[in-house]
């Protein structure tokens, strides 16, 4: 297998700025920040600075931030910590982790149309709405949920720049989405009074175990760098996104583009008719291009993407791309030429 030269997958190498600081953070992050030794106080100071950095980057109050050693745990905290008497609403294109986390509440799955759009219910005070700021697969942006009357749990695990509505109650981010170190989530809670910890607990802490301090510090650095790069590369990514859409439609054809035209520019999902995604992903990897797919044949649970199925999009032959600030025009050209070649190759047997 050849070496990968261009990464278009949801996960990428840790950001160089974070990698540079990670080793130093591990050296300094061995002590217990709650104790009074010199090293503990020093670490507590670094963590406080990291928390302030996250607060600035994500535009949420520092005191609302809690670090998770397991990001997926945040779905449980957000879905099950609010009043249990009402309905839980979530769109059909929500993450599987959100569906899996809901335990005892009455749940209404909100239907989506072919563009991934859905109607935000008015809700009542005891209800919960789980939204995704930016859909992880398609990049579809969440509709305005500011009129929802109940609690709002915001899944922002796909994009640190996703817009958090003013009426948010809880929110979740994943360090991987900004090329921070893996194994760190950020759970934010706006108001503790309406939330009860659904985890076994014996004190006021939201997350008893916390997270590795070295990962927190390195992730804060990655986030600052990543946001700065994203802001300056938005136009470039939008141009690449438009170019890919145009190329796969006119030069390859028989393609179903699941990402709405106004989706986040760094995410793009499309499916080629009569193409087996597993083979396509393998062949692309051999040619140096790392890509994802939501098709059943390469899914861990052997089921096609529920997002594509809910939207009525083609589920086979699916390709998911994530464009990075570091993605170059040369990467895109190489990706498209090889996709065209391999798709045509598979369709020859038709």
């Amino acid at each position, binding site marked *: 297998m050849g070496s990968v030269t261009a990464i278009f997958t949801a996960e990428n190498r840790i950001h160089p700025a974070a990698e540079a600081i990670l080793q130093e953070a591990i050296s300094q992050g061995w002590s217990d920040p709650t104790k009074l030794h010199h090293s503990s106080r020093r670490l507590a100071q670094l963590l406080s600075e990291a928390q302030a950095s996250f607060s600035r980057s994500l535009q949420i109050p520092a005191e609302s931030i809690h670090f998770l050693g397991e990001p997926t745990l945040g779905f449980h905290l957000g879905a099950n910590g609010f009043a249990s008497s009402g309905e839980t609403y979530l769109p059909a294109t929500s993450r599987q982790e959100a569906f899996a986390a809901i335990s005892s509440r009455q749940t209404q799955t909100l239907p989506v149309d072919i563009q991934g759009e859905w109607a935000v219910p008015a809700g009542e005070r005891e209800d919960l709405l789980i939204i995704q700021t930016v859909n992880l697969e398609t990049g579809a942006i969440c509709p305005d949920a500011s009129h929802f009357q109940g609690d709002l749990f915001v899944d922002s695990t796909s994009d640190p720049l996703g817009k958090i509505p003013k009426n948010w109650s809880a929110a979740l981010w994943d360090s991987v989405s900004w090329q921070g170190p893996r194994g760190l989530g950020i759970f934010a809670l706006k108001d503790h009074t309406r939330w009860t910890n659904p985890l076994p607990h014996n004190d006021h802490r939201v997350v008893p175990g916390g997270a590795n301090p070295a990962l927190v510090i390195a992730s804060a650095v990655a986030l600052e760098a990543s946001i700065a790069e994203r802001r300056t590369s938005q136009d470039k990514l939008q141009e690449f996104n438009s170019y890919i859409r145009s190329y796969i439609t006119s030069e390859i054809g*028989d393609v179903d583009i699941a990402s709405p035209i106004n989706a986040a520019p760094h995410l793009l999902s499309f499916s080629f008719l*009569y193409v*087996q995604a597993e083979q396509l992903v393998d062949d692309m990897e051999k040619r140096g291009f790392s890509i994802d797919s939501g098709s*059943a*044949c390469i899914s861990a649970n052997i089921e096609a993407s529920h997002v594509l199925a809910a939207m*009525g999009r*083609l*589920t*086979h032959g699916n390709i998911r791309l994530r464009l990075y600030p570091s993605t170059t025009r040369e990467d895109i050209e190489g990706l498209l030429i090889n996709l065209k070649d391999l798709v045509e190759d598979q369709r020859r047997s*038709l």
Partner: protein
Amino acid sequence: MKVVDARGKLCPQPIIDLAVEVRNSNSGEILQLLSDDPATWADLQAWSRMTGHLSRQVNSATFEVEV
């Protein structure tokens, strides 16, 4: 009615088998597709939208398509 038996085959093969048969059929003909792949109905609806054909689900493993 022509029958395309794709039982036991996984996506995208049932849709490929169907498309080959559609090519060899006359406009207005009805084809029956047999497929037990759980993704078939979702993909058949998407295929119908993309190619301009009408399709319907008869039961969980039987589908009809108008060429």
